[in-house]
């Protein structure tokens, strides 16, 4: 009965064509000789060469990467702790509120999150700039990390933790030597997700950033409003390339770790 009918295959093919065609077209036209983005005039990499001379764009890229690295790292620590709190301690005061604060940012319209964080920074007298931007990014990306790590922790075999504790390991040692190595692939994909979300964000960044801390999406946005140009296509293509590489590496790493883990478990049981 489990048959892949023609209808199933057709809907998948059309679905993926719909998902990928716009991105593919954008990449193709970044190599267009002509200034017009919709008329093909031959292959050229001149728009990429021009990017190297666009200092404002390079500065923005540098800010974006720094914010991404710092915020993804802090968000991964906080998100992993949050995931532990959610899965390990089913009863504590204010747990409902806590889980609300984890899930709500996932769907909260960005204009609300951005505006509210900006008003907080103004209220406590923090100058808008690189650090407010980073704080905002940590806050909204940590919830995504928490959800990713949480789903791994739910399928986690806790008897190995109990074994470590019985053998006299402290909770911290147990976490670092037993739990963390097992959930590491999920923590790593959480980091990658946080990094790409930070790299990508426009609305929250625009609210929480200040002079001197313009990110790449903010720069792209201000140029897009003036019209579509092959130069933006080139920037976008590079970003897509970086993200695709990151996802590819992440999936290879996590698959390898998973295979290794299964092997280790089998060896352990065989002993």
């Amino acid at each position, binding site marked *: 009965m489990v048959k892949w009918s023609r209808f199933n295959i057709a809907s998948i093919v059309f679905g993926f064509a719909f998902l990928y065609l716009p991105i593919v077209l954008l990449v193709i036209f970044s190599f267009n000789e002509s200034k017009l983005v919709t008329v093909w005039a031959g292959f050229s990499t001149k728009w990429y060469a021009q990017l190297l001379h666009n200092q404002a764009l390079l500065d923005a890229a540098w800010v974006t990467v720094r914010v991404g690295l710092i915020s993804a790292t802090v968000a991964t620590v906080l998100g992993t702790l949050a995931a532990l709190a959610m899965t390990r301690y089913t009863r504590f005061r204010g747990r409902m509120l806590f889980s609300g604060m984890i899930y709500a940012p996932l769907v909260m319209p960005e*204009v609300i999150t951005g505006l509210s964080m900006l008003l907080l920074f103004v209220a406590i007298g923090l100058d808008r700039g690189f650090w407010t931007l980073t704080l905002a990014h940590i806050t909204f990306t940590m919830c995504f990390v928490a959800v990713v790590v949480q789903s791994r922790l739910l399928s986690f075999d806790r008897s190995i933790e109990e074994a470590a504790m019985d053998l006299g390991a402290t909770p911290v040692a147990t976490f670092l030597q037993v739990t963390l190595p097992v959930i590491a692939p999920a923590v790593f994909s959480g980091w990658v997700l946080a990094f790409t979300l930070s790299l990508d964000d426009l609305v929250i960044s625009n609210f929480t950033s200040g002079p001197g801390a313009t990110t790449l999406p903010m720069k792209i946005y201000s140029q897009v409003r003036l019209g579509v140009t092959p130069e933006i296509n080139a920037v976008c293509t590079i*970003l897509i390339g970086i993200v695709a590489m990151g996802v590819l590496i992440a999936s290879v790493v996590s698959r390898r770790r998973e295979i290794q883990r299964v092997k280790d478990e089998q060896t352990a049981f065989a002993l």
Partner: protein
Amino acid sequence: MSKFGSAIFNRLVIIIPYAWLTIFFLAPFFIVLRISLSETAIAMPPYLPVFNLADGISGIADKLGELSVANYVFLAGDALYTNAYVSSLKIAVVSTIATLLIAYPIAYGMAKAPTTVRPTLLMLVILPFWTSFLIRVYAWIAILKPEGLLNQLLLTLGVIDEPLIILNTNWAIYIGIVYSYLPFMVLPIYSSLEKMDHSLTEAALDLGCTPIRAFWRVTFPLSLPGVIAGCMLVFIPAVGEFVIPDLLGGSETLMIGKTLWNEFNANRDWPVSAAVATILLLILVVPIMFFQHAQAKADGEGK
């Protein structure tokens, strides 16, 4: 030591993320609420009253009296804002339904795919989600423009005689939302369909159900949790969407996310934008709680 250390560790695991989210996510909403009750002023910060601990208790009490609901009265009286809320909700509902109609067959096809192909298909659905939202929306401008790729194709094929005007209309917004949020709808539906016990459908078929009836009586109800989660994941952010109406929509397009952005960035009216945000949040609080509840339940089942 061990017991003591253990207690501290357990505490910290909860307290650190809890405190962070309370300060940076929850507290700001109260500040938004409070500023929405203020008046615009030419100052920095551009609103009045500004509370200052140096004023002492009586000073703060005086200033509390200065808070007013004038901004809400203003919003209610101005058709621009009410229309923006209504039109945002309408656009979000229509595009959520459209996304569901497109996503369901894809998720269904994926769940029916041979197990060896499934991880690859899953990866292919997730990949666009990692690509920049802004870039994916931007990509559609070149396609939908009057002299864009879609019109070129249709004109060459002879389907149309003159270019369709899609960009800067609500059609472009629908396309943009469906496109950008499609993976959010496909993934939860796929995961609920994948978990499903196929013997149930077989039983229905054996008992004489037609395949279509079996789908509506058995498969669809069982996939409902995924459908609901997907709809929430699309609907809630779509109501407050800014990038899509701004880049693909036209001047006549009213969406509240864009209104809020303009109020804040162009008009610099912080109290009014705070009031706009507060009302938007009130509209969304029920769907958000619904989403949280469904999500927590789904995670609980994983145990």
